[in-house]
């Protein structure tokens, strides 16, 4: 009995113990294992500035040389354009399409009446 009390009190003490407060190990970059964060910060800052300088030069070159002017893209929407092309290819569909449109329109009017 005494043994059980001791065991139970030990268990309670263990459960009530505060979680470990020691700081967990720091997470580092795999590629930066041998260098300090200060060194890596300075390195990546330089790489960024180099990238920005390269992109600025490329942008100036690209924008200054002009660009080709293509034919104006069609103004119609995707579905209208698709429909027009389909009807041009198959003129017999035009009658069927207009009949279907009329039917759908009638249905809508009936539903909302």
């Amino acid at each position, binding site marked *: 009995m005494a043994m059980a009390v001791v065991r139970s009190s030990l268990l309670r003490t263990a459960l009530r113990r505060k979680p470990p407060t020691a700081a967990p190990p720091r997470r580092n970059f795999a590629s930066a294992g041998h260098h300090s964060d200060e060194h890596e910060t300075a390195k990546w800052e330089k790489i960024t500035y180099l*990238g920005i300088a390269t992109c600025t030069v490329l942008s100036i070159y690209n924008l200054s040389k002009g660009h080709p002017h293509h034919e104006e893209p069609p103004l119609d929407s995707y579905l209208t354009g698709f429909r027009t092309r389909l009807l041009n290819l198959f003129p017999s569909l035009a009658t069927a399409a207009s009949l279907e449109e009329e039917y759908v329109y009638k249905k809508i009017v009936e539903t909302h009446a």
Partner: protein
Amino acid sequence: MIESQRHSYHLVDPSPWPISGSLGALATTVGGVMYMHPFQGGATLLSLGLIFLLYTMFVWWRDVLRESTLEGHHTKVVQLGPRYGSIPFIVSEVMFLFAFFRASSHSSLAPTVEIGGIWPPKGIGVLDPREIPFLNTPILLSSGAAVTWAHHAILAGKEKRAVYALVATVSLALVFTGFQGMEYYQAPFTISDSIYGSTFFLATGFHGFHVIIGTLFLIICGIRQYLGHLTKEHHVGFEAAAWYWHFVDVVRLFPFVSIYWWGGI
């Protein structure tokens, strides 16, 4: 962490945001269907649903920031959750975009007779890959370098440098989006111009959409860094944004090589 708590886990309080987000999503989908069919009030319901959804996102994330940054509920073990969650999320995004790149390469490797048996299809004038498409690639890669600079600055405890680095990242991202918009405006083909136009705008458009999402994510991180929310020990939100941003800038190489370069010559 609260002193009386005997474990490292965060037991969240009851929150109204899951149900409000669900109702917002329901209103958005029903409103969207109504809007696309001739039903009255569709646009109103869709707008209300979207506003409700955006509001829920704002307040829910506000609560998460309060719990993690101000109340200290996000212990090391709690931080593992969003960290592990980010990985399959980004993998699924990679797969999503690869489906569109594959659609383009599938059509280009065996062009059908309907498009003249050639790639780019007969009658399609394509963009020069050496111009804006090439320029946009180092812009996005440089922004990837800038986000790494920000990460190291946070780890080194250099708060101001981290803010500058995030400003550089976001600026490059905005320049990328601007050039992409210019490219779309000048494109000599539309989304309805054959399988080339469809796959081109779907793949590059979804990539551009991810760039915009990543830019918003980084802007939030920049504001939080400026406010002193991110510390060298605790910056999971930033890490998720940095991973997302590296995914976006590495993925850019694939449309550049397969769609602009290989598909445009």
